[in-house]
């Protein structure tokens, strides 16, 4: 028996994807010979070295939405590269990890090719990407299982389920080939992810992924995280700190990227972690440890100036889902911080040199021409935040409505008219001027104003592809 675990492209990242490393350690602990590597990064490296920027864009487009007019031999080459890398290890079992829906088409063709080349290999897929559907009504796992392209799909905590499944510990395992699954009770004192099969020379950003929590303490109306993680779970500060030190000792890596929805969901444990890191960094000026993570802004009563000082000792970039610069829109979203809180946090970050990456959604259900104008004005009035602390502003495309979210459930009440049932970006509001065309204009106007004010504007390629699709 030999298990191979790999991440499935295409995820635009310069950092290692953590899932294979985390799964490996659990499987090795269960006595399963396992290789785990970041196929996504190896593939990105291959594609970047072989194809032009235009070809890469077209390939990504294909793997995003099966778009036509793309050189088929290049697609085949990409699939074959991945399949060859997997089969090189002669596995008996293959577990493919999908971070998001942008891996679905790739996964489908990798599984197809693997099944042809070796029908006896047991194929398992898992990860949030299996279940965040873009267009299909069924999840990818159910679809591929029905087509006999895979043997199993796993929903939920694969780190527990995968070894049980490989070793066939039980006849029926919760979360295997079904949507019901049980979240693990305790994230503390688990073995740490094993990155030993990763090629660290491929990463521009040499960092290690960390899980400090699962789930989220907020219930933002547009987010479906609670569909995946029913309850919020966290690790204590000491346990996380131990892991950071352990990786640093084993790999020399000093930068860590939290894969959590937010690092400071449990504020008490977060403060403990910050204190430990601050002490470590003060005591080890030549081997300081740093992290970046999603982060939530909180009122001054919850994050004091001393807390910001501690954070500044180790934080590299805080990615903050501000999502709207309009307080009323933000409150409707379920974000619980006022404009005053937001400016306090920005000011503290500027004062203590903490970089912030701001995430914004354009065209929320309560957005109007007025909120669009206010947002445009905000950039101009807050130029002083350019680079200190706002290092980047990321417009995550226009609002897409996902099944399993509050706005999806309240669509009638909110007057939302959906165009399709799955992650709909083409929705409109009844009798109101909030349509896909208007949202695209707001997106353009806001990003232009943001750039004009001097902010660094970033956007993921898949958002561009989505918007291109909306324009057609």
């Amino acid at each position, binding site marked *: 028996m030999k298990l191979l675990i790999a991440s499935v492209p295409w995820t635009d990242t310069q950092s290692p994807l953590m899932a294979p490393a985390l799964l490996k350690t659990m499987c090795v602990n269960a006595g399963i010979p396992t290789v785990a590597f970041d196929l996504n990064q190896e593939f990105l490296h291959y594609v970047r070295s072989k194809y032009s920027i235009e070809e890469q864009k077209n390939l990504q487009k294909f793997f995003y939405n*099966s778009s*036509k007019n793309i050189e088929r031999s290049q*697609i085949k080459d990409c699939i074959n590269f991945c399949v060859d890398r997997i089969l090189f290890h002669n596995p008996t079992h293959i577990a493919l990890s999908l971070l998001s829906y942008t891996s679905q088409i790739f996964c489908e063709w990798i599984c197809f090719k693997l099944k*042809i080349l070796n029908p006896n290999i047991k194929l398992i897929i898992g990860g949030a990407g299996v279940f965040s559907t873009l267009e299909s009504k069924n999840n990818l796992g159910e679809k591929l299982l029905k*087509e006999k*392209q895979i043997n199993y799909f796993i929903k939920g905590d694969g780190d527990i389920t995968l070894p049980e499944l490989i070793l066939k510990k039980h006849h029926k395992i919760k979360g295997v080939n079904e949507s019901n699954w049980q979240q693990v009770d305790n994230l503390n004192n688990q073995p740490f992810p094993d990155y030993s099969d990763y090629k660290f020379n491929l990463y521009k950003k040499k960092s290690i992924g960390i899980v400090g929590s699962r789930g989220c303490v907020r219930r933002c109306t547009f987010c479906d995280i609670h569909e995946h993680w029913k309850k919020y779970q966290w690790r204590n500060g000491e346990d996380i700190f131990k892991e950071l030190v352990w990786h640093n000792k084993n790999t020399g890596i000093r930068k860590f990227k939290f894969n959590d929805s937010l690092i400071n969901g449990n504020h008490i444990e977060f403060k403990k972690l910050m204190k430990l890191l601050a002490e470590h960094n003060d005591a080890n000026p030549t081997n300081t440890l740093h992290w970046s993570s999603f982060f939530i802004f909180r009122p001054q009563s919850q994050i004091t100036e001393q807390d910001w000082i501690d954070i500044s000792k180790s934080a590299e970039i805080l990615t903050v889902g501000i999502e709207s610069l309009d307080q009323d829109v933000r409150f409707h979203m379920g974000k619980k911080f006022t404009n005053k809180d937001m400016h306090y946090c920005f000011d503290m970050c500027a004062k203590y040199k903490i970089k912030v990456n701001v995430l914004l959604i354009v065209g929320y259900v309560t957005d109007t021409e007025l909120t669009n104008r206010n947002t445009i004005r905000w950039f101009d009035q807050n130029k002083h935040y350019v680079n200190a602390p706002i290092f980047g502003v990321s417009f995550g495309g226009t609002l897409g409505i996902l099944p399993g979210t509050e706005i999806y459930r309240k669509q009638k009440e909110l007057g939302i008219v959906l165009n399709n049932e799955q992650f709909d970006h083409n929705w409109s509001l009844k009798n109101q001027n909030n349509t896909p065309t208007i949202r695209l204009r707001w997106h353009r106007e806001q990003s232009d104003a943001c750039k004009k004010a001097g902010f660094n504007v970033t956007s993921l390629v898949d958002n561009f592809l989505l918007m291109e699709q909306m324009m057609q």
Partner: protein
Amino acid sequence: MKIKFKIKTNECNGFFVLKILDKDMKTIANPKFRNGINDCNLELLLPNCLHFHLSGKNHKRDTIVDPISKKIIKDKSLQILDIEVDGKRLNKNRIAKMFTLETEDKNKINSAYWGFNGCVKWSLDYTDSLELHLDNLE
């Protein structure tokens, strides 16, 4: 490469006679149909070319038209409903457009519904089934 066809047959004074030949014009299937939906499984090497030879239809006798409504009420015909290549289905919309039947009197009909004697050629100029799938995405 394994191909599985799901073929719907409509009977009218018997069924169409279908013969499937490969690129060397060797008969590789001669399915015996029953009314309704039939499976036809093939195993072939790529690249290849399939020739579907249709015969046995008398066009005067084997298409029955309602004299009042002028609608066809019974017709000897075949329809390719589904194709699975190495276990994976081709897109249905694509199947509807991918075949051209050349009738005995040299007319060309682009459809997966075959109601005339003649021949359908399906060129499989691929090195593997992945290529075939990628070439036939909707």
